[in-house]
């Protein structure tokens, strides 16, 4: 029995190795993705283009404008006496924020009447819109505090801030676990689905089913070589993350690798299930794509924070395996926690693997019977 299984697996491995083109794509693509996105994707807001609208410049408005100039995030691209001049810039997308002073700014400040400032933000991108607003506000309020600090009665509450798990606030630390999940899903689920359904289409699967190999052995034999490939991908991705981006690895690498294997198996199981339920290669591909890639990117918390989603989607994310893996990966890499905090998530993944595998075997048996 072992020899038959081994022979079968060797054939699968040969198959994979011989298709050089696909192999290159499978090994290279994920690596390129990790590197590319690691460098390119930043979720924080930098280089905000600022327009100053100052109808009657005075020492205070100039001082506040100075503060904006000095703030690294902002870059003053235009100064005008009225909002009208700035509007066309907004329309053409050349300005992100406009700060408009009221005409008697310094005078109002001195007489302790409210001196008004308008922050106008190009909110066609509401995400960056509200962030830019918050930062602009911060600059203004800091200036206000400065003015008031000279008052003998002024109170100062000094916040001491600690950014846990990611002191440098690097975006890449957030994305890398998600990218690894994506890479694993791609290789495991898609490849298995395609490989299996191709055998089905060609008719070679029937030969296997008629042989002494049992359905579960066929599945295992198909799945293990791709597991190897997925594992290779994880290693390269993690290496890239560590060497190039200095993503921290605070927890146990062994645990991370083990969890990656478990997650791969979930994806593989899903791929097998898809293949057993669809009739042609093309359908298998499309269904696998829809069932794995889309939920993994959107509903897993990889790109979009789950907390911001409507309740239904948050519930749905619980059946997306990638979600659990991302929690685990982030926990291990960024927080340095171990199984004591992650046992529940791990159990979920193991459960999912078993579920998909059993469902796949059952569905295969149904064909033979």
């Amino acid at each position, binding site marked *: 029995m072992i020899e038959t299984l081994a022979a079968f697996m060797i054939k699968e491995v040969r198959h994979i190795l011989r298709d050089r*083109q*696909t192999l290159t794509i499978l090994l290279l*693509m994920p690596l390129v*993705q990790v590197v590319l*996105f690691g460098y*390119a*994707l*930043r*979720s*924080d*807001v930098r*280089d905000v283009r600022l327009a100053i609208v100052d109808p009657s410049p005075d020492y205070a408005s100039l001082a506040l404008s100075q503060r904006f100039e000095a703030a690294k995030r902002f870059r003053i691209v235009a100064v005008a006496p009225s909002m009208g001049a700035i509007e066309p810039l907004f*329309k*053409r*997308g050349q300005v992100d924020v406009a700060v408009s002073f009221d005409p008697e700014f310094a005078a109002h400040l*001195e007489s*302790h*009447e409210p*001196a*008004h*400032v*308008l*922050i*106008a*933000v190009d*909110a*066609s*991108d509401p*995400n*960056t*819109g509200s962030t830019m*607003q918050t930062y602009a*506000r*911060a600059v203004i309020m800091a200036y*206000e*505090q400065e003015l008031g600090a000279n008052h003998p009665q*002024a*109170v100062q*509450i*000094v*916040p001491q*801030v*600690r*950014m*846990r798990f*990611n*002191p440098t*606030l690097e975006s890449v*630390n*957030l994305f890398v676990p998600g990218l690894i999940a994506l890479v694993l899903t*791609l290789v495991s689920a*898609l490849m298995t689905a395609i490989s299996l359904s191709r055998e089905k289409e060609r008719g070679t699967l029937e030969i296997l089913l008629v042989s002494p190999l049992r359905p579960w052995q066929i599945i295992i034999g198909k799945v293990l070589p791709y597991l190897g490939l997925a594992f290779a991908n994880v290693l390269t991705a993690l290496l890239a993350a560590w060497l190039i981006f200095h993503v921290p690895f605070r927890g146990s690498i062994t645990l991370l690798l083990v969890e990656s294997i478990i997650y791969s198996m979930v994806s593989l199981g899903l791929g097998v299930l898809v293949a057993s339920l669809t009739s042609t*290669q*093309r359908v298998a*591909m499309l269904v696998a794509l829809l069932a794995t890639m889309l939920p993994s990117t*959107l509903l897993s918390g990889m790109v*979009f924070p789950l907390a*911001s*989603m409507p309740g239904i989607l948050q519930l749905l994310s619980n059946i997306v395996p990638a979600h659990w893996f991302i929690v685990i990966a982030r926990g291990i890499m960024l927080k340095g*926690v171990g199984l004591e905090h992650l046992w529940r998530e791990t159990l979920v993944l193991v459960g999912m693997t078993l579920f998909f595998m059993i469902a796949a075997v059952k569905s295969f048996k149904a064909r033979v019977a």
Partner: protein
Amino acid sequence: MRILRVLLRKEFLQIFRDKLLLRQMLMMPFIQLLVLSSAATFEVKTARVFLVDRDHSTMSHRLSGALAASGRFRIVDRAQSMKPANEAMLGRRTDMIMNIPPDFERDIVRTRTASVQLVFNAEDGALAGVTNSYAQQIIAEYARTLRPSVTSSPAIGIQTRGWYNQELDYKHYMVPGILVQLLTLVGTMMTAMNIVREREIGTLDQLNVTPLPRSAFIAAKLLPLMSIALVEFSVGLVVARWLFGVPMVGSLTLLFFCAIVYLVVALGLGLWVSTIVHTQQQAMFVSFFLLLVYLLMSGLFTPVRSMPEWAQWIAEVNPVKHFIVITRSVLLKGAGLTDILRPLGILAASGVIVLTLAVRQYSKRAA
């Protein structure tokens, strides 16, 4: 000309007979728009705060009260020491810890200075940064209220306005981007897979043996898919309007014209992909990879201007990015032709380049 007609007939017949494909085509806009636009939001809702108040004074209560009253923060738990708070953060039960030291009120009364510790879960660095900024603003506000005479101090009144999207509604922002993604998916992936499929089956050879001009073949492949993509786009726009209330301020004719230019690029890319891969499977992988790169680097999810220089250059030649800019400008800002001249020009140029490259690459005789 007649050959083109004959070919187009064949393509359309094949497409309409592929029931599975048709169903997918019709369903995709709906599913994507529904799920994506609900999911795709970075809106910061409330941040969960774990309060460690070791002072229990009026002032400390007022401070934490101010935080909670802002609507952006929600106190989910309290304790007397940092240990349970840290545990909660590790266990993902809180986003932030506010640690008020035991002599808080006394320090303020005596020295007019006190400190407060804020600990943030900075896995999402950008989010933590914004939350931090907000928290500090609230703290500063509270500090101001502690002055005996509030009115005798310089005060700046801040008003804010968001242009083009009054309520900062995410859907209005994301939906155009999702529509573009849809178009790209249909355009590039379907084109690539369609042509590679003919190669895999063997009908491509049969066509290459005929006196069929290369241009006719390519046109016959691209035109039907372009029309399908445009239909999808229209359906998507209708859904966007009715279901999500996305405003359509600008000219739809202009938008469709731009869509056609964009599709030339997307389809040309699909054509190019079909010349470099051998199987449908590879076609799918490569187009998906390209799609992913284009999408993530388009500014839809992360701002382009936060990217490093070289990445911004890539984004500059990213047709997805430009079409998203165009779509948003036309739909949300009511931009006219002159306002979008630059992105449109880049798209047109890309289209010409991609198409030329792809046509050159495609040859009836294998070298």
